[in-house]
């Protein structure tokens, strides 16, 4: 799987490259600034790009803007955005095209390399991965609203993990229940929230996030 990495700090870029190579990814390009990233994305057409939000030249949200721009030119180009902080505003902008193949994670998530590489693969496969902090904030804001308050505690846990972009089996593993139980919960959630149920993991995530984003 070919990956483009964009990160301006040498130590972190090097660390990411090593981590990815150790897990069998092929590094198509490792760039340090926004223009370089755009060129790499459009020329290399990687299977997935891992992009830091803050990049030169302006050291603001250049990475994010390049990612969104590249996805306009190459629809569905899988991009996993990494950042020292997560903002719901940026999550919304990434999700706005509803094309999937999007991830938005805190940099800390790299510590857990298995989960991180899972996330990279999920995004490359067209899935959507949101940091649990984004999901917590989303839920926190709308928790008091009517349909969400009808969910049971377990259903909320499942919803949270679903919104983060996890598959049924991953959720089952995490909550120590069977996959069947998870799919039962997810059906209940979709009924309560008035969403069209879908077996496709990716569409399911997008529906849930769209719902939470109001």
């Amino acid at each position, binding site marked *: 799987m070919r990956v483009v990495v964009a990160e301006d700090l040498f130590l972190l870029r090097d660390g990411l490259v090593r981590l990815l190579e150790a897990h069998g990814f092929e590094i198509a390009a490792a760039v340090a600034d*926004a*223009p370089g990233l*755009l060129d790499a994305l459009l020329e290399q057409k990687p299977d997935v790009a891992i992009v830091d*939000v*803050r990049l030169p*030249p*302006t050291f*603001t*949200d*250049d990475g994010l*803007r*390049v990612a969104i*721009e590249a996805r306009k030119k190459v629809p569905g180009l899988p991009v996993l955005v990494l950042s*020292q*902080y997560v*903002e*719901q*505003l*940026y999550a*919304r902008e990434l999700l706005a095209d509803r094309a999937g193949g999007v991830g938005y994670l805190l*940099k*800390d998530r790299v*510590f857990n390399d298995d989960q991180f590489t899972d996330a990279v693969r999920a995004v490359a496969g067209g899935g959507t991965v949101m940091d649990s902090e984004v999901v917590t*904030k989303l839920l*926190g*804001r709308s928790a008091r609203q009517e349909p969400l308050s009808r969910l049971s505690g377990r259903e909320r846990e499942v919803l949270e993990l679903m919104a983060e972009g996890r598959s049924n089996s991953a959720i089952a593993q995490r909550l120590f229940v069977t996959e069947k139980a998870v799919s039962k919960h997810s059906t209940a959630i979709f009924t309560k929230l008035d969403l069209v149920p879908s077996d496709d993991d990716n569409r399911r995530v997008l529906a849930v996030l769209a719902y939470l984003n109001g």
Partner: protein
Amino acid sequence: MRRGGQAVVLMMFTWLLVVVAAPACLVVAWVRTGRSEYAKGQRGRLRDFRYCAGLVATGIIVGGSAYPVLEAHGDRIDWAFLLLGIAVILVFRPRLAKPAVMCLLVALGLYGVALARHVGVGTYTPWRWYGLLPIGGYGIHSYGTYLILAQAYAYLLLGGWLAYREIIERPRLAALVLGRMAEPERRHDRWGLLLPYVVLGVTALVGSNAWFALAVVLVAAALVVIRRWPRAAAGAVVGGLLLLGLIGLFRAKYWSTSGNYGYLGPWSYPRFGAVDVSNQTMGLAAGAEALGFLALGCWLVPRIFPDARRLLGLASDNELARRVQRLTESRAVAVDTAAADLRRLERDLHDGAQARLVALGMSLRAAERLIEINPQAAVALVAEAREASARALTELRELVRGVHPPVLADRGLGDAVRALALDCPLDVDVDVDLPGRLPAPVETACYFAVAEVLTNAAKHSGSRAAKVALSHAAGRLSIVITDFGLGGADPAAGTGLAGVEKRLATFDGIMAVSSPVGGPTIVALEVPCALSLPKISSS
């Protein structure tokens, strides 16, 4: 030349008309203003009647001034028409008395200015009447010529002042006539309206044959300046008046002492302001006028140029002292908060991230020792170290958010407030109208001000929704935060809103709170600042 008998008959006829018609007009006015449609009580009636009486009086003065001129043309009934017009106004539309008085006064003033120009030209002027005084005779030494200008300017001033007051009291009319000058803070700029007259006066000094064409062009230009650059117009009026005054005084001295009036042939006397200087008398009149211009110009200087008084050392420095006081206070607050923020930062780093990094180092050292003897325990320690580093990162993140939120640096105030709204437990509707970026310190202060107000609203208002509107106009950033809760917020009671006000004061910003019991609570913040042009995207 008029035969004496005819003149006497004419005079008697005139006085008869005045004595009979004027009281009749007043009676009509008194009856009309008492009619039910105008029944606004005795005071209202008196006010209306006052203008009606004023109209009759002005009519008599105007008629008296105009009559001999008309008579010279053999058109004797014009004055009767004037009185008839006044009577019609009084009978049918007593309310028109007010504008009619103003128009007549201004017309009389302008007529006087024109009259002053010509009265001294001829060697003989028939006896005539201007305003309240007879003038004429052998015009050169007639005492009346001195008084034409004074009267003309008095009528212009009175009529202009009445008209100005009337215009100011009607906002729509004011906006139409005054344009941008209608704004109350541009009160002094309204003196700029005198620009066409000043321009005429200054061009008259040129005295060339092209005077008239030049004057037309310059007056047209003056009208444009008044409309587009009211401040510049006011400044030009002051400069023009001072120039006219000084030149006029010098010339008056020359004219009255040398006896040389610069006669250049008929219609080519040196002009000054409202007079053609054809003789010594008019030279003195020009001097008096120049004195008036100079006085008005000097009086206007501190009003149009507020800094002039301080520069001349005339102003009491109250304003400056207050400003210094405010700056001292806001600087103290700024320094205190900056110091407090740094202390908090130091403490948070010391107790948080630093402590965790120490623990991390110790765990790693322990793992180093254990790795040979007890690999399993070492792995557990390393995992612990990893978690400690994640927690340190979380804490640092929170710290950074408190110092300067990253989204504020990335996107500016508009998007930062949008992000704030998304994180706020209230349902916040954000309306941003900022076409550029604000200065970074203002952005930060305003961001934390909005955050504080929203936190307050979420905690105390009981509202579930709020609205934030940001806009920038006329060099001021304005932020209005509205919640639909219980109201009753008092900036004096809590530290939150008072703190916001103090911090904004550093930037000369102000805060206003309207929070009646029962809501809604509206907090308005205003900070003077420049808006930089939108950044052009680098990609």
